[in-house]
Every structure is written in structure tokens, then in C-alpha cells.
């Protein structure tokens, strides 16, 4: 097959991260890039793009030539060597140099500091230093000081900065220990999780198992080196995380929450992903409750009490301690003439959430009154007056109950 066919069949993936501010992308490029997760082929993306096919294809080609994406399956070697960018500008670099830079750039977020420097995790300080020096000679921006290297300059910048960071962390005893105990353990744990399916369990992907110690198989997996699958999962996780961040930026909290959840699935111990998921999820829940309460209000206006109950029940499912929802539930049951015990339960829950709320207390009092539990009703109205001495309604209700009970005992 010719090259065009190969490209259409190939699966594109973003090289490095989408968040480099140096990358000047227009919205169409951004959109197409957001569809590229390494699983869909170019052909599939073009058909889903919702834009003129030729235009989309031109954009994809341009992204490929600039080295922003790699297309798996086009040149088998190209992934190892870092992708296309053969026709891309940067006359000051040879093809080999470009590929070397892209390969290094692609690795940056995906591998451990040890692998980045090309040393074993047990490497001595001297070995680490020599490795850093050797790599500095290759990737320091000064090496390419006056050459025309276009888009590769900021990539080089990122590579060197990351190398220096890796060197700084690994060459200081304290920070190296910390790194070994956190990040390296995470990688080992990820290896264990990936190793499990290989041992016969058909789970895909493996569920986050909070508390599974990275023991079984870790040492073996470690000896084998870090399998490609681990890196793929970490990369997938990162990809979804980025989609989530993009969603946050556009205030699409539900979509963000979904993406973060996916990110967590691929990388369950990642605190950052967890935090983002929880926060996004919290916003989603909050928004949803607001919507349900609003709908409950509208239903109440047209006296569709069953519907009101439905909405409020859904809201309470999302947030079981929501004072306002409980109170409104109590009120609607009262109005409907429904089960007073149920109304009382809701009313009590509302008060649990806001003990000083006058309205909630008055509702409870009213429920007791309707249920002929006058002592309880009086007690609640008294409490109301304690909180709000000028409450005329409470005063009136007390008078009425006293009148009623006097009549009764007569």
C-alpha cells in the first residue's frame, strides 16, 4: 500500500503533551488532536470529525509533519526513532538529529528518572553523573545555539530541563530515597497490576485495589524491566487526565469528571488524578442537585406532588444529608397528606443539618401538631421562640394548641 493508505490506516497519537504553550494550535487542530488517543485510525477520526474530510486530512498531515503527532503503523521504526517531522522546517538539523530529539521528548513524562538518564535503578552516583554529563552534551540548548531548529528548540529546552531535574533528584541522597520510595514504588505496583492479567485473570482493566501490596511478581517484573504495557497505561491515564483538564477549562464538569475517572482507572494511585476527580465530581453533584431542586419547585407550582417527591428523592440519593431537600420533602408530604412518620423523619434530618433553622423547626412542630402529638409540638414551638422571640406564628400556634388541649382535658 502507498503512503497515503498507510497513513489513513495508521493510529495517530500526540507526541509529548498537549499543554506545551509553545505549540500554537488553532481550534480545528485542537479538536482533531483531542480525538487522537492512539486507538482510532486516521480514517476513523476523519469520519467522526464532523468537518470537511479533505480539510481534516490536511490538518492531520500538517500535524504529522510538524512532529506534533506520531502515526503508529506508518513507519514501524518511526515510533522508536521518534516519528516523522522529516519534512518539517528546522533546516539546521539532520533527520537523525530530529528523530533523536523527538524520541527523547516523547519519553520525558513516560519513564522513570533512571530510565531517562539511561542508568539502572541501582546506579552509583558517579554513573548517574557521567550519564547526565554525556546527555547534557547531546541535549543542552547551547549545542544548537545558532542553528535553525524551529519547533525543536522548545522541545530541546524541555528535554534538558527534565534531565537536570532527574539528575538533581537522583544525585542527592535524600531526594533519591524519596523518589525511590514513592515514584519507583508506584511503577513497581503498576507492573504488578499489569502482570496479573498475564497470569490468567481476564479482567480488563484491573480494578483499583486499594491496599494490594506491590509484592507478588514485583521483583520479577522489575528484573524484566518496565513492560511497554505499564507505560501505555500510564500514558492513557495521562491522556484522559489532560482531556479532563481541557473540559474543566470549558466548565464541562461532567465530562471532566468522566475523564478523570478514566484516568484514575488506568493509574489508580495517582493522588493528583484522584483529587481532580473528586473535585470535578463534587461540582457535578452540586449542579445536579440544584437542577433537581429547581425542577421540584416547578412541579410544586403546578401541584404535581408525586413528581416533586421524585425529584427530591433523586436529590437525596446524590446527597443524603441535604437539609433543604429533606425539608422540602417533609413539606410536600405534609401538603399531600401523606405518611406523617416519613415526614417527621425528613424533618428531623433537615434539622440535623441546620439546627438553628426556624422554618425547619416550625415544620417539625406542625407535623407533630397534625399528628396530635401536642407535647412534642409545644416543645418545638417553644424552642422556636427561644431562637426567635418575636416569632408571631409560633406564639399563635402555641396559643391554639393550649386552647385545644384545654378543651380536650375538659
Amino acid at each position, binding site marked *: 500500500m502507498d503512503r497515503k493508505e498507510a497513513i489513513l490506516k495508521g493510529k495517530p497519537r500526540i507526541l509529548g503533551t498537549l499543554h506545551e504553550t509553545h505549540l500554537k494550535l488553532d481550534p480545528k487542530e485542537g479538536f482533531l488532536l483531542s480525538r487522537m488517543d492512539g486507538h482510532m485510525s486516521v480514517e476513523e477520526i476523519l469520519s467522526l470529525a464532523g468537518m470537511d474530510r479533505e480539510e481534516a486530512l490536511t490538518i492531520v498531515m500538517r500535524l504529522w509533519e510538524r512532529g506534533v503527532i506520531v502515526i503508529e503503523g506508518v513507519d514501524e521504526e518511526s515510533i522508536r526513532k521518534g516519528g516523522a517531522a522529516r519534512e518539517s522546517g528546522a533546516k539546521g538539523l539532520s533527520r537523525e538529529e530530529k528523530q533523536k530529539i523527538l524520541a527523547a521528548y516523547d519519553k520525558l513524562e513516560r519513564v522513570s528518572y533512571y530510565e531517562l538518564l539511561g542508568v539502572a535503578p541501582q546506579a552509583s552516583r558517579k554513573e548517574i553523573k557521567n550519564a547526565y*554529563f554525556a546527555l547534557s552534551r547531546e541535549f543542552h540548548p547551547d549545542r544548537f545555539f*545558532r542553528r535553525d531548529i524551529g519547533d525543536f528548540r522548545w522541545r530541546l529546552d524541555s528535554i534538558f530541563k527534565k534531565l537536570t531535574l532527574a539528575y538533581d533528584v537522583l544525585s542527592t541522597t535524600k531526594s533519591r530515597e524519596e523518589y525511590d520510595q514513592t515514584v519507583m514504588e508506584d511503577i513497581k505496583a503498576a507492573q504488578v497490576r499489569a502482570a496479573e492479567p498475564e497470569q490468567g485473570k481476564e479482567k480488563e482493566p484491573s480494578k483499583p485495589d486499594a491496599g494490594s501490596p506491590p509484592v507478588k511478581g514485583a521483583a520479577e517484573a522489575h528484573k524484566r524491566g518496565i513492560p511497554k504495557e505499564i507505560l501505555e497505561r500510564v500514558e492513557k491515564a495521562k491522556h484522559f487526565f489532560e482531556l479532563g*483538564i481541557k473540559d474543566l477549562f470549558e466548565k464541562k464538569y461532567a465530562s471532566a469528571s468522566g475523564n478523570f475517572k478514566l484516568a484514575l482507572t488506568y493509574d489508580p494511585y495517582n493522588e493528583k488524578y484522584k483529587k481532580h476527580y473528586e473535585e470535578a465530581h463534587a461540582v457535578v453533584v452540586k449542579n445536579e442537585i440544584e437542577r433537581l431542586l429547581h425542577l421540584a419547585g416547578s412541579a410544586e407550582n403546578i401541584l404535581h406532588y408525586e413528581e416533586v417527591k421524585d425529584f427530591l428523592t433523586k436529590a437525596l440519593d446524590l446527597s443524603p444529608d441535604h437539609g433543604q431537600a429533606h425539608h422540602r420533602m417533609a413539606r410536600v408530604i405534609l401538603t399531600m397528606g401523606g405518611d406523617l412518620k416519613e415526614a417527621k423523619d425528613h424533618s428531623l434530618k433537615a434539622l440535623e443539618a441546620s439546627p438553628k433553622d426556624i422554618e425547619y423547626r416550625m415544620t417539625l412542630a406542625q407535623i407533630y401538631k397534625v399528628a396530635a402529638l401536642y407535647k412534642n409540638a409545644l416543645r418545638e414551638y417553644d424552642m422556636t421562640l427561644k431562637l426567635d422571640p418575636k416569632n408571631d406564628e409560633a406564639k399563635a400556634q402555641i396559643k391554639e394548641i393550649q386552647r385545644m388541649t384545654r378543651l380536650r382535658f375538659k
Partner: protein
Amino acid sequence: MGKVIGIDLGTTYSCVSVVEDGRPIVIPNKGGYRTTPSVFAVTDDGRKLVGHLAKRQAITNPQNTIYAVKRLIGRRHDSPEVKRAKETCSYEIVNGPHDDVRIVCAGKTYSPQELSAFVLMEVKRAAEEYLEEKVSEAVITVPAYFNDNQRQATKDAGKIADLEVPRIINEPTASALAYGINRKKKDEKIAVYDLGGGTFDISILELGAGVFEVLATSGDTYLGGEDFDARIIDYLVQEFYREHRVDLKTDRLALQRLKEASEKAKCDLSSLKETTINLPFISSDSHGPKHLVLPFPRKKLEMLTSDLVDRTIEVVKQTLEECELATADIDDVILVGGQTRMPLVAEAVGNFFGKPPSKGINPDEAVAIGAAIQGASLFQDKAEMLLLDVTPLSLGIAIYGGAYTPIIERNTTIPVRKGHIFTTATDNQTAIKIRVLQGENQKAEENTLLGEFILHGLRKAKAGVPEIEVSFDINADGIISVSAKDMETGKEQAITVTASSGLTEEEIRKMTEEAKIMEVVLKE
């Protein structure tokens, strides 16, 4: 494209070098001198002089002979150093329009950048004559401890001199390049002790396989040969007063002569055990003319200045401690700067390190040579050496309460990018002001302000909830960029620090309606 020259723009002397056929050479000026005084003057008849000619007529023209401009470049007019200069300089220093300084010379005002540019032009001319071709690029050196403003100002001086400055490098690092470029030995740790006319710098470097890595650099920008001279002057003034009851400090002309004599005596005593200070007709009163004639032994000079030397050793000690190195770890010590010719200095350094300082390097020329080497290496395809320099001063921001948080610690290899998460200090704060500072003082206001900007549009929330990531980025040329990003909305604001004297580059786009404090608090 022409050759790149290396220029050591010194407080008292400047030197220029270039790499020819793979070897660095120092370019002499027209008079055959390998160094050029960093002096500019305007004579009575309006002639402009630079270099040796300017220096020679200094004594008869003190008000219009400008020297030691390096002590003023990039500094604020209210800084202690400038205040000190105003007291001792024979020329007039006035406040500039950007909180900087201006110098008055023959009725005109000049900025320090301009005056430095005159010196640069002088050495540039010498280089062009020697090379017989136009020179348009130069690597210029600065003291390692120069802050960003001072570096930018030096670059500006280059621009004024019609020189493109691809890189500013630190003087001790340049010396190390000059020293190490021919060393075949692998893996050495060296200390560069640089005591020049105006500043003291100490740098520890590691050399290995063609890579020069700066491990740490420190110094004292208020300590140099001039301070040694000042001690001698004070002593002479004191002696003269004791005998004649006349305070020579109030006499500008006398002061000028004292200065020259002190400097000469100091230099003489590097090789002689004793000298005589002889200044006839230094003063006069109703009784007639007065002379100053004083025997001045080396021992006296050492007594007067030993505390200055001790101060430098203290800094060296601290710097070694910061690198977690012992004196035994240092394989070689090199001395740079004219003041290191003083036997007391060489002795103190040798004693501290437990080995005599290396002799293979010319203390006056090493810096320029190193600059030329770096310049050549930047433009070479397969350069043999690579310099991994560091940022000498910490970079950070001001946070709530007026404290300072460094984000990039000093002695971090550049280029570098580091970030930290911060949050708001008050409820419903929708903007934060980022003030970019350079320095080590825990109080924000004691450090140098490089620039500031405001990030608007934060979601209204309780104090401590929003997450703002502040990132610092220093590229290989030492250009600093700072950005602040609201992690929730993704909104970002950034500046590239190109201040020349504490001025902000970017205009602040709009002020928020809340006039409350816009400050920042550490998230963790």
C-alpha cells in the same frame, strides 16, 4: 559571520580576547597594552577620552573623569552601594528617571550603560583592528553575583556599543574555562577565587569529559581591590591629620592623589617588602605647603586589610559547606583578579585549601579568555566543551505577610523550570499579584524586584481553596519567565522579565474592583 570576541568588562580594567585557530589570544590595544582601563573622561577642551589616556589625566580632571562605573550599573539610586559611591567618587552621581542613576560629566548626564558602552567600543575597535574585520558579537562577563538587573544593564551596554551579546557569563566560570580547556585530567573539582577591583566571587566547579559544571557560586559585591585602597587612604588621612591637623578627605584633589598613591603602593608591596608614599605639596595652610611622606611596609598593609581577606575566606567556607564538600575534595584552586597578586591573599587562600594556588593562569586575562572560549563554543558545530552554569541568586515570589518564597534555589543548573502551587489569602479573592523577586532575604522587600503582574479571573471561593501554579523558567541565556496558572479554569498570565533597572516590562492590563490585598499564600 564574523568572530565572536570575549570581553572582561572589569571595574578598573577591561580585557578582550578571541579564539584564533583553536587557541584563545588576548588582543592588545593600540598602545600595546593587553588591558584597557575602564575609564571615560571629557577634557577641558571637550575631547572625549577612553582607556589609558582617560586614566592618565584623571588627576588633573577629577570631576570629569568617570571610573568604576561597574559599581553603579543596574543598581537603584537608593542602594547602599550607590550611596557609598556618592560619598567617595570624585565625579557627580545623580538620580535617574527609573530609580537608577545618572552620572554628570562635563555638563551632560550619562547612564552607566552608556559609559560602559564607551569602554566596550574601545576594546571592540582594538579587536577589529587586529582581526582586520568587523566585529558584531561579544560574550561579556559579569561578577557571578550580579543580579538580573545588573546583567540586563550590561547587555544593554553591549547593545549601545553596537554589539550583539549572545551570552553573559560569570567571571569565575570564565576563568575556569580558561584554566580547564587544556587539562587532560578527567574529573576534577576546582575552586575559582576571584578578587577583582570591585567585587569578590568564589565558584566551585566540576570538570569532566568536556563538561564544566558549576556546583556553587557566591561572593560579595561590596568587596574588591578598591576597598583595600580605601583602607590605605584612611590610614594616610589619619596619619596626616595626626601630624598636621588637616583633614585631607575634604580636599578632592588631594583625595585623588591619595587614591593613586595608595593603589600604586599596594601594587608595589606585592613584590617589595616596603615602600614609601611620597606626596609633596599635598596640602597647604597659612604656614605654607604640606607634604606627605610616609614609609609604608607590607606588614602595615596586611594589618590594615587582613579583615577583608578574612571576610573572603568566610564566604569560601560557607560556599564549600553548601556544596557539602571539604577542602580536601578540591583538586585545584585558581586565583583571578589583580588583587590576588597580594601575597597575603595568596597565602590565606593556600592555607585554607591546604595547597598552593595554581600558577598556570594569568589573573588579569583569564576571564576574557574564558569568555572568548565560550563564544567560540556556542557557534561551533561540534564544540568540545559544554558549560553548565547556575543561577547565582534564588528566584521566588512575595507571599502574604511580606515573606519571600524561593521557587528556584540559587546554584540551580540552568536552563531550568520549576513550579509551586499557591492559593488565595482572603475569601472571594479573584485576583493575585505575582511579584517576582531575586535574592536570599526572607523578607520580600529586602530582595530585588524583577517584575510583577496580576492574574485575574479566579473563581470566588473561600481563602485557601483555589490552586494557582506559579512557574519559573530560566533559559540558557538567563532570561527569566514567570507564569501563574489557575488550575481550575486554566487561565494563565505570564511575563518575561526584561527589566533593566527594576522596571516592569509588561503593562498591567486592568485593576480589579476589589481594592483589597492581592496576595499569595503557600498552599502546602
